[in-house]
């Protein structure tokens, strides 16, 4: 690959200096590795420039092939600010000229003329290639909306779930990492709808099922984050329609690492982390509690205990976690290999919770028959063991802080009455909940390039995804009466899951002059099977009950074609036909089309002038239809389920069947999506930006609603009931504001990645049979709150809007409780009578906030100087509220219930509520936040010859700023924005090393 085209240098432009900066940066990089260049027999002078623009290239590496100087270093240099280099070499020496983003040139020293060498841009550069469904594409040719994050930009530190790696990195992608060890993350792309929000995950072409396994917290735990090369988020329908009925929530493509041809590279990573609880729930300590009892229940003061126990402290700990990873990768002429073993032991800050796992990743590619046949075999194995609790927060918040952990005789303090809280420490001691999952994800792929019909390739992919999952819970006989309620002392559940996927497709690529076309068509078969079993030991008997298999299947036909004229105009169209077993024969099959167009303005002749200013200027637009089928199996079919406990009648043991509700009319959710985007680049790519506008209309929304009683077997059914619109704007800016590397070795360099997304969602239609409004129910946020609806779905409102009574406040903003001063807090005195009918009831409820943010932002700043590197990531949400259900236990009557004391939330000293006010808007609180999610300081040690060594320190969740009064404003997305005592996200400090052996 040599280029000997000599061209005339262009005139200097106004952007000369800035270009220099960029190029000097590369120069510095070269200097890091090649510290010396020796004088030899003759000096070779040369000049390098960009073939397409004619600009001189600064910092291009020039190395004499196969020669070293006296000190054993390579003979090398780099081009200066004028794109020129001088090097001592023999005329017969071969020079290797390389530059990031350009094709490498090998040229005889004697052939380097003074006129200058042109370098051609390398379009196959890895960074520029993105994975799209069933193929890859050059990022510049893409006319849909997607974002690719490479491993170097991933979040650092203790991140066990793959989706946590890109938290805060992608515009419009909301990732809330769970605080649980090995926990599942909440991932939401471009706004909330009503049902099944999780994007589709595709790992090396294998489409994962969207449900986690029994006993595992995060379905991605089988995958080691160390094995991931890059993640690509497909956002608009033009990108995801090729995934048809599962494309509506976006697609996250995960590409794992492969070996590169060359000597084996061995890597070893190790880290140790310590996590501490960030903020404790604001409940009373023993002293304050005693003071309240003295004031409110003086007659019962004698019933208080003598201890002062901080129950939260008693059930939490500083959690230590370790991680080790060994990887080896490399390749021969025809074979590439990659293998890794990863071990993680992750303690949770709540005692009795931990995550322990081994991940093994293997990937092997073999080329055969003149490289026309490529066979790939890959395996990802996860051996996962989790301690799952018990979740004792509810008890720890409620139990009397004046009670001791242990009685004088050493036994645990426990209440006999089942209505009283458990001693949370005893509950932890006496309860064992464990999950285990062994998952084997194997894929086999064959690619065959037809030698007799060039351009046509055939692909066959098969994958088997097998998981053996287990969940067990045991309650010791010493546990309190309420922990043993129902008498169940042992419970074992198992699940075998087998997901099978076959895909066959063909791709044809052809370029005729300025036209290039690529067409793909294929067939896919996807089967998801889960076989659960359960055995329980209850009341001295074993119960083994058959559980129904869960099986669903998809059959698909898909096609896509891309057309591109001169790299200027792009047109892509795709169509998928999906059949899903989740729907009845009438509504089973559907078409999912999409189309997108793009225009790279800089390629136009008239835009030559603009190239001086812009590096990229592209407009794109897309439209597409996708689906969402994230509902249970067999819902369209009238089925009967046997009972778990048989009934014994007259000596007969009878299995008792129960009919399930069914909706034969059910069909998938349909999402129509529009996207318009503009990509701009300046200063040779030192500043790039994209802005996108999108609108997603979801119709035929699937949602569980009440149905008229007595008409079906269930009083609630999943039905297609309405429509939701999400629309918004996303802006990303990537910049290198300061770069001193061209001027000094290891100089200061600062890189910024910023994204901001505005989203607005609205319910636009609800089935009139459902009355136009539906209530969400709280369930049991803390143990004793009962079925109080806090939010509403209503046409014209945002999804899950909080719907509560509005508390009256005085001029100072204090709550008005008892305006007639009769000592009784009546509803009518406390809340605004919105309809002025003299009573406070459902009709006086009002929208008082929404759980979803208007704006989400992410900022990652990376700096390097000398051997140091420093990175931090910020994340922010605004416009969102949280219902603080933890605080609802702050009311005075709660202090003594069923003959025992209950601890109170400190909010009571502000609210002075006597009785529970579960529906007061006082608890709907502004939950905007700014979080410092990740800070990393690294140091590279270069002195060791046979390896590169890096040591680093990372801090996660170091601080946040928020007006929200609860523990963490970022609550789980599945709880309608209700803070039900979330598992605390720990402040985590990690120290680690990474070594690469060569």
């Amino acid at each position: 690959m040599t280029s000997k085209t000599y061209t005339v240098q262009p005139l200097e432009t106004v952007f000369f200096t800035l270009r220099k900066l960029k190029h000097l940066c590369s120069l510095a990089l070269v200097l890091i590795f090649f510290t010396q260049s020796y004088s030899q027999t003759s000096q070779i002078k040369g000049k390098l420039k960009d073939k397409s623009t004619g600009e001189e290239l600064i910092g291009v590496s020039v190395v004499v092939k196969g020669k070293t100087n006296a000190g054993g270093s390579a003979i090398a240099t780099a081009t200066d600010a004028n794109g020129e280099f001088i090097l001592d070499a023999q005329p017969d020496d071969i020079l290797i000229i390389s530059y990031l983003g350009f094709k490498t040139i090998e040229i005889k020293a004697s052939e380097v003329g003074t006129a200058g060498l042109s370098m051609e841009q390398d379009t196959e550069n890895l960074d520029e290639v993105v994975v799209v469904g069933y193929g890859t594409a050059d990022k510049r040719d893409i006319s849909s909306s997607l974002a690719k994050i490479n491993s170097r930009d991933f979040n650092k530190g203790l991140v066990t779930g793959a989706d946590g790696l890109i938290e805060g990195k992608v515009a419009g992608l909301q990732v809330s990492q769970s605080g649980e060890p090995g926990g599942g993350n909440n991932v939401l792309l471009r706004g909330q709808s009503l049902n099944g929000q999780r994007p589709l995950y595709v790992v090396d072409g294998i489409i994962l099922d969207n449900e986690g396994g029994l006993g595992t917290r995060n379905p991605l735990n089988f995958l080691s984050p160390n094995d991931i090369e890059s993640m690509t988020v497909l956002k608009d329908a033009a990108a995801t329609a090729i995934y048809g009925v599962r494309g509506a929530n976006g697609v996250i493509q995960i590409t794992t690492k492969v070996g590169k041809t060359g000597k084996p590279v061995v890597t070893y990573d190790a880290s140790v982390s310590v996590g501490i609880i960030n903020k404790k729930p604001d409940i009373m300590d023993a002293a304050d509690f005693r003071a309240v009892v003295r004031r409110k229940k003086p007659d019962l003061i004698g019933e208080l205990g003598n201890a002062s126990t901080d129950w939260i402290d008693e059930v939490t700990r500083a959690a230590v976690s370790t991680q080790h990873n060994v990887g080896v990768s490399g390749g021969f002429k025809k074979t590439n290999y990659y293998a890794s073993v990863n071990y993680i032991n992750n303690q949770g800050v709540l005692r009795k919770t931990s995550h322990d796992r081994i991940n093994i990743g293997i990937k092997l590619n073999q080329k055969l028959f003149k490289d026309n046949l490529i066979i790939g075999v890959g395996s990802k194995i996860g051996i996962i063991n989790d301690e799952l609790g018990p979740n004792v927060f509810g008890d720890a918040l409620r139990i009397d802080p004046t009670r001791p952990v242990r009685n004088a005789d050493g036994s645990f303090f426990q209440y006999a009455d089942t209505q009283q809280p458990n001693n949370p420490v005893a509950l932890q001691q006496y309860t064992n909940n464990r999950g285990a999952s062994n998952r084997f994800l194997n894929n086999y792929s064959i690619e065959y390039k037809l030698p007799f019909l060039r351009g046509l390739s055939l692909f066959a992919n098969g994958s088997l995804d097998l998981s053996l999952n287990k969940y067990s819970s045991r309650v010791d006989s010493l546990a309190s009466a309420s922990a043993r309620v129902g008498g169940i002392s042992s419970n074992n559940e198992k699940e075998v899951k087998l997901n099978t996927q076959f895909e066959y497709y063909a791709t044809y690529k052809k370029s005729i002059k300025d036209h290039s076309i690529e067409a793909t068509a294929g067939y896919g078969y996807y089967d998801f099977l889960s076989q659960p079993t359960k055995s329980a030991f209850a009341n001295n008997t074993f119960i083994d009950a058959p559980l129904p298999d869960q099986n669903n299947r998809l059959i698909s036909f898909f096609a896509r074609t891309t057309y591109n004229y001169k790299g200027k105009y792009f047109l892509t169209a795709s169509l998928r036909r999906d059949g899903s077993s989740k729907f009845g024969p009438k509504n089973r099959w559907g078409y999912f089309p999409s189309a997108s167009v793009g225009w790279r303005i800089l390629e136009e002749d008239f835009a030559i002038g603009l190239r001086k200013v812009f590096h990229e200027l592209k407009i794109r637009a897309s439209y597409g239809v996708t689906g969402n089928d994230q509902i249970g199996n067999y819902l369209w079919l009238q089925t009967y389920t046997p009972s778990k406990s048989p009934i014994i009648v007259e000596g007969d043991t009878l299995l008792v069947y129960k009919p399930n509700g069914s909706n034969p009319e059910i069909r998938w959710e349909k999402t129509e999506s529009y996207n318009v985007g503009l990509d701009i680049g300046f200063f040779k790519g030192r500043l790039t930006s994209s802005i996108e506008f999108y609108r997603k209309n979801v119709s035929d929304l699937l949602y569980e609603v009440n149905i008229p009683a007595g008409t079906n077997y269930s009083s609630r059914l999943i039905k297609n009931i309405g429509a939701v619109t999400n629309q918004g704007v996303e802006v990303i800016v990537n910049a290198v504001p300061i770069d001193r590397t061209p001027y000094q070795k290891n100089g200061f360099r600062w890189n910024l990645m910023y994204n901001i997304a505005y989203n607005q969602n609205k319910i636009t239609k609800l089935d009139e049979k459902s009355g136009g409004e539906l209530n969400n129910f709280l369930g049991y946020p803390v143990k004793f709150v009962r079925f109080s609806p806090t939010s509403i779905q209503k046409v014209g409102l945002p999804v899950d809007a909080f719907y509560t009574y509005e508390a009256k406040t005085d001029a100072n903003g204090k709550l008005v409780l008892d305006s007639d001063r009769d000592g009784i807090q009546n509803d009518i005195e406390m809340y605004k009578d919105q309809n002025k009918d003299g009573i406070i009831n459902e009709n006086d409820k009002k929208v008082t906030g929404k759980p979803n943010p208007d704006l989400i932002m992410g900022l990652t700043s990376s700096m390097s100087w000398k051997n140091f590197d420093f990175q931090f990531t910020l994340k922010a949400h605004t416009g969102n509220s949280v219902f603080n259900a933890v605080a609802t236990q702050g009311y005075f009557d709660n202090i003594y219930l069923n003959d025992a004391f209950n601890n109170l939330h400190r909010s009571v000293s502000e609210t002075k509520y006597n009785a529970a006010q579960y529906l007061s808007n006082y608890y709907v609180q502004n939950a905007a936040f700014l979080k410092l999610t990740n800070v990393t300081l690294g140091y590279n040690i270069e002195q060791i010859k046979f390896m590169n060594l890096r040591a680093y320190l990372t801090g996660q969740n170091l601080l946040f700023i928020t007006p929200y009064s609860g523990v963490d404003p970022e609550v789980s997305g599945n709880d309608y924005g209700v803070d039900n005592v979330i598992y605390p996200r720990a402040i985590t400090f990690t120290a680690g090393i990474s070594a690469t052996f060569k």
Partner: protein
Amino acid sequence: MLFTPEPSHSQLALVPHLNKKYMKKLTKLIVLLSLLACPLACTNLELVPTVGANENVVFKDPAVYKGYLYKLYTSFTLTGQRQPAGESDLDGTIDEGFSSFVRAYWCHQVLSTDEAINSWSDPGIDHFQKHSWSDNNVFLKALYYRIYFISTFSNDLIKQSTDEKLDNNGIKGADRTNIIAYGAEARFLRALAYWIALDLFRNIPLITDIGLDAPKQVAPKVMFDFIESELKAIENDLPAAKTNVYGRADRACSQMLLSKLYLNAEVYIGESKYTEAMVEINKVLSSGYSLATKYDHLFYADNFKENGEIILPLPLDGSTAQTWGATTFLVSAALSDPTMQDNKRPDGTPFPKELLSLFGTGQAWSGNRPNEALVNRFKGSTIPADTSDPRGLFWKEGRLSAEIIDVKVFGTKKEGYLCTKWKNINQDGTAGSNVTFSDIDFPMFRLADVYLMYAECVLRGAGGDAGIALSYINSLRERAYGNSSGNITASDMTLDFILDERQREMYWEGTRRTDLIRFNKFTDNYVWAWKGGVKEGVSTPAFRSIFPIPSAEVVANRNIVQNPGY
């Protein structure tokens, strides 16, 4: 055969030769083709669950119908597919513990009257005693949906036991005869559910099929006629009285239900039908039932032994039919262990001893106490004066008085007596089979009620014999007193006396609200402590004689018109 050609040697050799050469390639091809073809050929998207499956699979097995029938029966007591709780029959927005029919029915029929006061803070439970319930009440919702769960379930069993379905499923012979009989039982249970709905909610949809369309409410008269015609239609299809398996409906149950429908006809449809009631009552009376020897035993763990008197029991078992509702609730919610022991609870002791030995349970939930009006019914000015009726089963030790001033505090203030009518102990004094869940079967219908109904119909001029009526009343009283000291005379036997006597005999069994309404004393004409939310009691608006349709149903079904006043 004369001649058999021998294959030549060369022919024999050729075959394996061919095999070796081509079979290898053929095998490869077949393997390759089958690998490709298998998933291509699998275009089947008709997936059905392997366990349970759809009706065409499930109902091929004759044994399934019996389990299905028992699921219908247990829908009156249990709450879901697991015991004591789990996989609730009703949806997740209804607390499974509240959704037991017996428990929910009891809250509506007893807590709304002068029989009981509940001290819990579950939202809405105190609204029953205050007569201030709204259509958002969670207990109301639980009961309404429970009733319709039963009606839907009955509809399906009725459908599955038709000739057409049984032909399709190939059910023949004795199995078929049995299953057709199950259909009649299902029709009875549906009539029972609809009678309760008519009594409580009055204006309700009548649904006999399964689908997705929103039904309309029917006039009370339509529902009344439907129940009447159903019960008449199945009368002879049901087994003769006392011939069916324990816990299942027979002819007497159907006659009993019809008599109760007629007895309250004036309330339901504005027409009195006491004469018709008398006809049905007489049928039950001639079915061979007799009173249990001891009143207390009717509410014991082994009350299945009293099936001479209990006409329709809803069976429960602490080991094999467990629930947090039904009689477990009746026993445990009435107890309070600090009171029983009269000292502080020793922390760490799992079960208070006294509770176990006296009531057969380790559970004391401190919920229901008798209203002082109920306690007073057993003494005072009624006949015979100054004699305490032994049927008043109240725990008084350690309690201040029958008066309840602080409704919310059960244990510590010791206000109000405890009602110990329901006891999870056996006649031999041993505890029930489980220290948590009750063995007591709930007596839905029993003979004493029939006696009282007979006397009432006589007094309401429906014929019958006043002398027999008096002897029935006195037989109940003689059983209670153990002798004739509590007997009454013909002149004592008035309608007001009957209402009081019904309470003395049937209190805490879930009939009081219906009785008070029939005697027009539920909202007006009579007050008791805490009625209307005030200690002395006040009259409440007449619309409270029926309950509202739950708001969830009003939202889900646009055809529903809410009951007046709500």
